[in-house]
């Protein structure tokens, strides 16, 4: 059933519409007047959805790792690996957009006092270890099995790093962490929401699109190599 979705077009068109909407209205929409943030709050439509997209793709990767461990069909390993790849890419984009934002509002590209930033970087390291692990096996079956096990750990720690550690921290510059109020409480007004939610789904769709192509390419490669 899942394989069919990869070949359907409706979500491609939805993604296109949503992203066009985001990229046009993101620059025009009425924003709340906030000190320091000012116009840079428009990065909310790019930086935050990148992380949502990464979380979504990593969740898919985790689900397919679990499915792989349940029935050991090689195609689920292909899904898990490629969703993780694109998720990593989205996370890198999230870090880059975050760095630009940090330069504008906090005055530096990289801030140590910022727990969430460093935790996110560590989360990317966790997943880069996943790719290194995948590349160090020769036998495809044990590669799939061992990396599925590791990816479960990786996801748990990813969630701890992104969602738990920043909230435990005593000081943080991100909204909603280290005692700061979240975006919801004061400034995510309805105009922002109007663009923010389409942006989230748009970027998730783009991530899904990229991974669908990687997955289909992998299937073609496997057919050519006569693995299946």
């Amino acid at each position: 059933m899942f394989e069919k979705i990869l070949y359907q077009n409706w979500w491609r068109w939805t993604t296109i519409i949503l992203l066009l909407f985001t990229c046009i209205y993101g620059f025009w929409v009425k924003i709340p007047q906030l000190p320091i943030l000012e116009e840079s709050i428009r990065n909310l439509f790019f930086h935050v959805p990148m992380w949502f997209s990464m979380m979504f793709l990593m969740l898919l990767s985790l689900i397919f790792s679990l499915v792989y461990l349940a029935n050991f069909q090689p195609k689920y390993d292909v899904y898990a690996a490629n969703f993780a790849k694109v998720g990593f890419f989205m996370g890198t984009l999230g870090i880059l957009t975050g760095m630009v934002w940090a330069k504008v509002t906090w005055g530096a590209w990289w801030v140590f006092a910022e727990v969430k930033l460093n935790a996110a970087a560590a989360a990317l390291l966790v997943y880069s270890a996943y790719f290194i692990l995948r590349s160090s096996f020769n036998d495809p079956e044990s590669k799939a099995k061992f990396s599925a096990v590791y990816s479960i750990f990786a996801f748990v720690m990813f969630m701890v790093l992104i969602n738990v550690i920043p909230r435990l921290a005593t000081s943080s510059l991100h909204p909603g962490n280290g005692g700061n109020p979240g975006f919801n409480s004061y400034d995510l007004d309805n105009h922002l929401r109007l663009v923010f939610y389409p942006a989230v789904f748009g970027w998730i769709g783009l991530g899904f699109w990229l991974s669908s192509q990687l997955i289909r390419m992998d299937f073609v490669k496997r057919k050519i190599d006569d693995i299946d």
Partner: protein
Amino acid sequence: MRIDNIIHLIRKEAVLELRNKAILASMLIYVIGASFIVYYAFQGQIEFQVWSAIFWIIILFSATNIIGKTFDKEVRLQYYYLRTIVSPIELILSKLLYNAILIFAFEVIIFLEMLLFFGVEIDNLPLFFLTLFLGGIGFSNLFTLFSTITSRTGNVVLLSVLGFPIILPLLLLILRLTGIAEVDVLSTDTDVNIGAVIVLDLITTVLSLILFPYLWNE
């Protein structure tokens, strides 16, 4: 799962370790040498924050070395023999327990040395030892499972590559707890942090127990 099986397995580990004293002794010298180098590099003067960071880093590196060879000890044939007599859960539980004990012992040794060299004062010793204990369990859980993964690849660096980023949340919490233990102020953070470490330990234990059978049925 039978308790006496686990105890037998742990005893077997200990006997194997003691029979080959060279490894144990080399780990001991490794630890002493590491703290001695730190002592010289800092000229014997060090702030507590730096002390605790270095203390945990030494533990981290020795833990990778100690646990990295957990599954090298089993020779191939013996491994097949073990499979016929114990269940995977018993095996992984015995390994986790044995490694936790071993790491705790090394932690105490490192602590005594660093205490001797730098003469730090820790106000809340019970909390500090609780941190050592919980940290040791966490290290042992993560590195034991990963060493089963890496022992199949023959890539020596892989254990550090897999382990270090994943150990980071635990390390952050432990460092905070160590800081709290030094100046014995009544901090509201203490309970939250201890709880978080315990939850992390539990998660890693449960994941190890669930996932090890998959790795073992090769």
